[in-house]
């Protein structure tokens, strides 16, 4: 019996979209066709609410090898090598089952990397949970971290960086974004475009089960209700061992020159992989679902086509190469099966044995999903409730410093990073906590620096400025390591874009991201969109996660964040005016409501400051460099003390009106840095950019004078406060 319009609506299509589908087919779709259309026309696969916006982003530059549209973006890193990278979300699966959700998130992004022929060399992650005083948040954190570690560690790809924030706005809708970075010789890259009618289509990897059926359209694109327990059976389970074999097998297939095209299976499984391969190549594909190895024998054709079973790849090869392909699969103990062939029909034909069970135009399926305009409308202030106050008005600056260091958004991430293998593959020159960006060695002495960042609270206060700040922060992190940005990836985690205020957040954020990346010369080469992130109490903070890759000429001079030598001078660099407490971490601890708008950033100035820092690091002039972020100047200096095991004495003079001591000590603003080194070097830096000598490295305490204010905290006290997250993992 043919499904009807009500089935289409249940699968997430609108009535109008259903009518369009029927028009494209010239008849009502059958079950297989409707399932395939509903997935390909879901937000997750079609970007129907975001594509028009994303077209405004800068995507081109001299180093761009591959922009958005392929499995991942790619930039040239010299010597014929290409760095491939992308960030992707696995939010809803992680909220349902955090261990498997996070694990398969890592598995999925890794497949995107090796689908291009690149060996994955690093993983970073970006996590958002509710405040850790909630038992559910602690559970989600614990299991998501374990899941990331389980997958990344087992497959032998180092997790070299990441970030985590805790805010009430993520209490029922956590965010788990994973970024992967790969390396490949440019001439060895492979694309996903199928070509050559008569060529074979080979499925290899895990067998196909009922995992995640409906996942892409139900799990990834529907708002969350209270019934998430019922969704558990459709959660995908990750098998990093299978993926490790799949990775090595894929790379060997490419090394032997056996493949015409390669694609991973992710959201929407075979449907998405095969139809996108056909679309990119302008060809058709016939698939026989009867040849797909199944984990459950009684699966229907539509289930096979939409299954999201993990650890599977699809390749195209010449018919005479099939035996060689299957032999490489056998060597790696990976199951490979020829399941179809490339045609010149421009149609996806799904067969079961000799019977045609689905016949759809590739273009209609992949490219013709209607795109929607957003109806943005700036919300009235007060969209988000103010944070809960944990720091009283009577607190002294010393109290504030210790509270900030212990706050979950600032405390040391070591208890998380110790659960990740950050050193496998022998490239990690700056491990987590050693520098603002992770630094990986390249053959030839140069290096890659990678960073990932987003501050949802600032974006909630001002989507344009907050998003630009996230991109600038990534570039600041790279500058502190001595690296220059090459390219950017992003994952836009937002609420329901059909709501005008979310549409406004999204529109403003994309504008901010585009402007910042244009100014940085760091084009956006790939990314992902995760919309409909809303829990029972409302939308999440809009969270555009930005990942950036940069290069440095000499890893031996990669920067560090920790103070390194007694007697070194310390300078605060980059700011022309006192920073503000608006939307700062201190304001959060004080329970202040989010401001409606942030102070504008002079992006060109910040980019210039970053260049000066980068050049000083590369010249070996600085012994440490650290950007001032959450918690402001005093927290940044304390972090330099803790990373280097050395104290500091600061004399900040008298507060310059109208700034208060609080703003001076804890205000936040893009483009500020704490650097240390010989005072002559810092003075030289001050000839290019604003720089203020503020103190000296030494002793076993952080001592600060600011007018009449005195702050004194021993290193042991600072360290104890900074270790607050350890208690979450006992």
């Amino acid at each position, binding site marked *: 019996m043919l499904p009807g319009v009500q089935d289409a609506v249940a699968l997430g299509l609108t009535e109008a979209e259903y009518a369009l589908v029927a028009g494209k087919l010239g008849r009502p779709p059958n079950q297989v066709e409707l399932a395939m259309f509903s997935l390909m026309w879901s937000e997750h696969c079609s970007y129907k609410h975001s594509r028009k916006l994303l077209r405004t982003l800068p995507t081109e530059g001299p180093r761009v090898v591959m922009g958005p549209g392929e499995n991942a973006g790619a930039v040239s890193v010299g010597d014929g090598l290409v760095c491939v990278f992308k960030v992707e979300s696995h939010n809803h699966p992680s909220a349902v089952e955090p261990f498997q959700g996070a694990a398969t998130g890592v598995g999925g992004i890794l497949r995107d990397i090796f689908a291009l022929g690149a060996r994955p060399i690093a993983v970073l992650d970006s996590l958002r949970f509710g405040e850790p005083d909630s038992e559910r948040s602690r559970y989600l954190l614990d299991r998501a971290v374990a899941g990331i570690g389980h997958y990344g*560690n087992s497959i032998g790809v180092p997790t070299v960086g990441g970030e985590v924030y805790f805010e009430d706005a993520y209490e029922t809708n956590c965010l788990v974004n994973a970024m992967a970075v790969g390396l490949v010789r440019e001439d060895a890259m492979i694309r996903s475009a199928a070509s050559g009618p008569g060529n074979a289509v080979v499925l290899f990897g895990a067998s196909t089960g009922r995992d995640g059926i409906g996942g892409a359209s139900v799990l990834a694109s529907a708002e969350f209700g209270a019934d998430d327990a019922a969704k558990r059976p459709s959660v995908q389970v990750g098998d990093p061992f299978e993926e490790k074999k799949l990775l090595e097998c894929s790379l060997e297939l490419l090394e032997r020159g056996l493949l015409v095209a390669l694609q991973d299976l992710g959201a929407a499984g075979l449907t998405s992989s095969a139809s996108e391969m056909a679309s990119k190549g302008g060809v058709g594909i016939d698939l026989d679902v009867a040849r797909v190895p199944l984990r459950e024998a009684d699966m229907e054709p539509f289930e096979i086509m939409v299954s999201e079973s993990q650890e599977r790849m699809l390749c195209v090869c010449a018919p005479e190469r099939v035996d060689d392909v299957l032999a490489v699969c056998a060597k790696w103990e990976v199951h490979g099966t020829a399941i179809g062939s490339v045609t010149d029909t421009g149609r996806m034909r799904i067969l079961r044995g000799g019977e045609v069970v689905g016949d759809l135009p590739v273009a209609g399926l992949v490219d013709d999903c209607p795109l929607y305009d957003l109806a943005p409308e700036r919300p009235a202030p007060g969209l988000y409730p103010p944070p809960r106050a944990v720091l009283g008005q009577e607190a002294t600056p010393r109290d504030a410093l210790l509270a900030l260091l212990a706050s979950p958004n600032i405390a040391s991430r070591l208890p998380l990073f110790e*659960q990740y293998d950050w050193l*496998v593959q022998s490239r990690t020159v700056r491990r987590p906590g050693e520098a603002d960006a992770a630094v990986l060695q390249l053959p030839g002495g140069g290096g890659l620096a990678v960073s990932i960042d987003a501050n949802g609270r600032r974006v909630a206060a001002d989507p344009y400025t907050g998003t630009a700040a996230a991109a600038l922060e990534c570039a600041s992190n790279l500058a502190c390591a001595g690296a220059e940005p090459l390219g950017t990836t992003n994952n836009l985690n937002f609420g329901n874009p059909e709501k005008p205020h979310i549409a406004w957040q999204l529109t403003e954020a994309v504008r901010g991201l585009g402007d910042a990346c244009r100014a940085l010369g760091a084009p956006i080469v790939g990314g992902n969109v995760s919309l409909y992130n809303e829990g029972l109490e409302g939308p999440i903070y809009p969270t555009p996660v930005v990942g950036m890759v940069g290069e440095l000429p000499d890893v031996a001079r990669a920067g560090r964040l920790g103070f390194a030598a007694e007697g070194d001078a310390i300078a605060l660099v980059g700011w022309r005016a006192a920073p503000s407490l608006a939307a700062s971490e201190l304001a959060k601890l004080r329970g202040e409501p989010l401001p409606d708008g942030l102070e504008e950033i002079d992006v060109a100035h910040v980019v210039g400051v970053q260049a000066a820092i980068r050049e000083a690091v590369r010249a070996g002039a600085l012994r440490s460099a650290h950007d001032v972020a959450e918690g402001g100047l005093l927290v940044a200096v304390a972090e330099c003390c803790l990373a280097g095991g050395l104290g500091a004495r600061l004399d900040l003079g008298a507060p310059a009106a109208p700034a208060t001591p609080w703003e001076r000590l804890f205000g936040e603003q893009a483009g500020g840095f704490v650097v240390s080194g010989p005072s002559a070097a810092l003075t030289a830096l001050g000839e290019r950019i604003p720089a203020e000598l503020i103190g000296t490295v030494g002793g076993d305490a952080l001592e600060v004078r600011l007018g009449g204010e005195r702050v004194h905290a021993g290193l042991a006290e600072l360290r104890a406060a900074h270790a607050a997250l350890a208690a979450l993992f006992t």
Partner: protein
Amino acid sequence: MRFGVVQFPGTCDDRDALLACRQAGEAELLWHGDADLRGVDAVVIPGGFSYGDYLRVGAIARFSPVMEAVTAFARAGGPVLGICNGFQVLCEAGLLPGALLPNLERRFICRQLAIEVVDAGTPWTCALAEGQVLSIPAKHTTGRWYAPPELLGDVRVVFRYARDANPNGSTDAVAGVASAAGNVVGLMPHPEHAIDALRGSVDGLGVFASAAAVPAGA
């Protein structure tokens, strides 16, 4: 000196071990499916998750064809080093005493550690000094070495975690042990990840240099 580095499905630190061996000699990969060591002078079984650590760490890998050849090579006195998962495989294969249990904290731990050389009389430690403390990272979930009390007295302990550095709760802070003859050594920390000052430490080089310093056939 020619090292062979064994590669199982799921091995992760094979290329790292090759890099380390090449600091001391020549090195090549040995495929798990070949019961042939291609005439190498020393065998390294590297870290990773052979067969996904499924069933029990090292339990499946020990039955692969290459392990028959490694066992014969070890019984004939050939130097064999098992690192992390390699240590687990050698224990499962009965070439080393004891077994590896889950860390007390039940988590994966990746940490730079201080490791003390306890026995410099093996081919993998002869270029080191007893009492020498090495800075070497460890990374594992199942690294708590255990031997029943009645066997403990006979075990040749080669490495111990320095004071307060035991990351997993192993018996007597044991980080690595040797066979009775000393030619087979296994340890949980990763000396192959301590071979370049740029990446944090060079203290692991001595392990590979030791094997290279042993006269062939000795």
